[in-house]
């Protein structure tokens, strides 16, 4: 079974923010809410690297573990979603998330009464696919239309990849081989010394 994953190739990411505005465009995310953002480290000095970060759709999702009302679920293809109807907007998932993905809108289509909002991997939520209710609460459901998240599909340099983890890995491996080096993803330096 497919397991949906994002991978941001730090060698290619140029911090152009296309992923951020593509997400805004597709889901009409209100001002102040960023389901996705680009993080840059060592800004302005050699070694500067950027990566685009959103919900990573963890297999063993901490948000899911800590949620006091158990509003999280994982779809068959590994996308972590939540039911806004029972979410109480407590912010505990914000504490648990290693990536700062959960957002808490004050107002607007996504955030009535301060419910949590986050990246849905463009997979909507627990409403009928592409129904009005799903659109209002969660945004568009591209997966149901056979499309992948728009942030990755529109990435200016194809740095951000989204899809089944296995084929994402295949593609990325090919790139690494072509470059003739070790993977230079952002996490690599965290895991290994030079």
């Amino acid at each position, binding site marked *: 079974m497919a397991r949906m994953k994002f991978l941001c190739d730090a*060698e*290619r990411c*140029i*911090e*152009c*923010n*296309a*992923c*951020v*505005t*593509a997400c*805004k*465009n*597709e889901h*009409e*995310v*209100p*001002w*102040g809410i960023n389901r996705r953002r680009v993080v840059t480290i060592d*800004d*302005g*000095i*050699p070694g*500067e*690297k*950027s990566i685009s970060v959103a919900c990573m759709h963890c297999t063993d999702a901490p948000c899911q573990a800590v949620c006091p009302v158990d509003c999280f679920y994982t779809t068959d293809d590994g996308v972590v979603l939540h039911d806004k109807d029972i979410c109480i907007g407590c912010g505990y998932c914000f504490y648990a998330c290693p990536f700062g993905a959960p957002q808490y*809108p*004050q*107002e*607007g*289509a996504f*955030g009535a009464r301060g419910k949590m909002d986050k990246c849905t991997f463009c997979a909507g939520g627990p409403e*009928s*696919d*592409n*129904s*009005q209710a799903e*659109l*209002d609460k969660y945004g568009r459901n591209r997966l*149901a*239309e056979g*499309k992948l998240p*728009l942030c990755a*599909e*529109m*990435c*200016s*340099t*194809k740095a951000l990849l989204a899809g089944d983890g296995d084929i994402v890995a295949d593609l990325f491996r090919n*790139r690494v081989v*072509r*470059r003739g080096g070790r993977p230079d993803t952002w996490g690599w330096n965290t895991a290994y010394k030079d």
Partner: protein
Amino acid sequence: MKLIKRDPAAIKTQASGLNRRTFLKGSGIAAGGAAFMSLLPTAMINKADAAQRRQHSYDEGEITKKRSVCTHCSVGCGVVAEVQNGVWIGQEPSFDHPFNLGSHCAKGASVREHGHGDKRLKYPMKKVAGEWQRISWDQAIDEIGDQMLAIRESAGPDSVYWLGSAKFNNEQAYLFRKFAAFWGSNNVDHQARICHSTTVAGVANTWGFGAMTNSYNDIHNSKCIFIIGANPAEAHPVSLQHILRGKERGAKVIVVDPRFSRTAAHADQFIRIRPGADIPFVWGMIWHMFQNGWEDEQFINQRVYGMDEIRAEVAKWTPDEVERVAGIKEADVFQAAKTMYEHKPGTVVWCMGITQHTVGNSNTRALCILQLVLGNMGVSGGGTNIFRGHDNVQGATDFGVVSNSLPGYYGLSQDAWEHWARVWDVDYNWIASQFDQTSYEELNGSPVSPMFTNGITVSRWIDGVLEDPENITQKDILRAMVLWGHAPNSQTRGPEMKAAMEKLDLLVIVDPFPTVSAVMNDRQDNVYLLPAATQFETYGSLTSSNRSVQWREQVIAPLFESLPDHNIIYRFAQKFGFADELCKHIAVNDGEPLIEDITREYNRGMWACGYTGQTPERLKLQLANLHTFNTTTLKAEGGPCDGEFYGLPWPCWGTAEMKHPGTHILYDTSIPVAEGGSPFRARFGVERDGQNLLAEGSWTAGSEIEDGYPEFTSDMLKELGWWNDLTAEEKAEAEGKNWKTDLSGGIQRVAIKHGCAPYGNAKARAIVWQFPDPVPIHREPLYTPRRDLVAEYPTYEDRRNFYRLPTRYSSIQAQDFSEEFPLIMTSGRLVEYEGGGEETRSNPWLAELQQDMFIEINPADANNARIRHGRQVWVEGPEGGAVKVMAFVTPRVERGVVFMPFHFGGHYQGEDLKDKYPEGTAPYVRGESCNVVFTYGYDSVTAMQETKVSLCRVRPA
């Protein structure tokens, strides 16, 4: 996908009441009352219009896909728009598109906002006693037209300035230039003047055409990518896809810039340069090449003229001198030179960091010479990949929206006017009679009509207003200014521009947004705002940076009361009484000149740069078959466009019937001209000082003349015995003409049939003897901090008449400002915004990402000036301009250099001008324009403004 029917009652109200206009009205109301100060109102706006949009998108109505092209930068990314019931409801990636493969940057990924943005200028407006009043189109055209005709009567046609736009499509650009000609003035210009005019002049005078020689896609084949004075990661983000693909295939990336830019973050070698020291650095590199024998002898001997004089100049730029002047160590220069020599073919990329200098034209030529030394021209993976700025700045330049040429680079000579009069099918004498009949300039001792003299440039229009009339080489000062799709905050000397705007009799702004022009001045009366439609609200062709001509489909109908630019041009022509002449061979439907007819008309006249084969039919066929084009070679493989290059990149020779595939890589002699090959152009004569200017021992594949040859004329065809290859009709037309003026295309056809390029086969020239500096030489900027270098490397002498205006150089450089203003000030782009930024700062998806105008300053300079990160500071310039901006303390800039982006506007010297915008049109994000502080300084050939080096001081606010 399953469509869920919603509450039938809701659908009913939809179907009965909600069309596109009410949809927009609805969102307008939601936004109109909301003061944009906190997060709350935007969220509400979004809720309101999103709710309405969604009902559309999932209830009823067929969803159609429209193909357009992004209207921001020159990469030309394909856009796929989903439209339902006339509303732009979705944007999908354009995977089939050979330029972007579906990708976008932040700007491209947010263009759908155009379809419902409520910050637009909604209807014609007029400022009366300090208040904006809504007026009708008829009233606007009438009142403006009457005033212009009165000015024409009293001060002559040259007192009205027609400032056009790189946002026009090709058809509109062409019509606009024709319109200005019929009005009777060369005071017409557009953004190219202040972005790549020095490139166009420098590069065209080196080898023939002033354009990008290869393409973004071709960078895949580069082995070395040398980027100088450009930050494509922010200015042309999708180009990085191609650059990084080249890098992944083994290319070395060298970035030369005063800042450690986001592009530099991806470089193998980053070289920090002192702003304005480009020529010393390039000569320094070539010095190492000559020293080590790394030049391509054979290429130079066969295809380059004047290299010996370059050798003499380069010899002066020893490593020590380069380090002294440019601040770059020998090892770094040597390394860059060696990398370029060892990794061939290499490409050179440049942008505003090279062009926007008083020595801009010399800078561009020095880089051309670098590529000639290495023999990197005319090869895949090589070339000078000059990234243009706006989406159609290449096209608007080609169509002559400039004060020094008619469409197609024909210039302003009598021959040029006669050629176009024939194409337009109007009487030459009638056009001449539209111009001022007095002469103000002399050429070779005899007076010349203003018809043949360069008009005032956009960079200097303010001087056209403010200068003493005695000093202007035309009848009177400028009295009416039309800013048509042009941001004033992209031009230097803000305070003087404000004064100029206030001095004008009449100020007309034609734009989808009110722009900074509407608010930066204190005029109380006689300002008109005319709402123009964006390119998503009309259709037509545009030319991307790589000379590819693409066709856009119309996505939505013009919003509110806006009109497409060509409709507005036509309305003015009607008012001035020459609409029938303007559209003599162009059908006009309901006030709209037919785009396809305009394309066909320029196809009949644009022989000189090969815009004759790109008919609407061929362009539309390519649009329908995007997926058949190879993404590296840009060549269609199979399908109905088999063998054509994408966008039929000009020159696309001859008539469409010739089926020329376009020219992907300029000056590539390895393929026949008929398949897109070409030699360097024979543009500068055949001989100089006894030396042969034509190519020697080099020709394009399949050429029947196996040596250099001059440009083709009817006489030359006869001499060669090829005259009888022409048909009888072609002969009748071609007699006495040349390849540029033969409207039958016969001369081009026959030349190409024999494997020859219509424009001849010559050498590129390393020295441009008509220019102030035939050999590019270093000259210190007007506002230089290096007073020690001024005596050795002085600027030019002041000039009395340059594009009709006196122009200062040495008199400014003579003053020392470096004590009081110790920091070098430079400017550039941000990825989220484009140009003057009015449109992008009005887009909430983009505006949210960059909410503050800022200045980048090195930690050391910040500490010395007691400046803290994130605090407000005053930036003051030597000409009196000052801006209040946020300090961004970063080592991205080195000590002594500060950087500001130029996209902001709407604040003026500390004051927010929000209340001066017509209600509801103020952009979400406003800020100071850095060009309020930027100073005097113009290129010696094109009057390009100097925005990359000036001086300033910074203090806490």
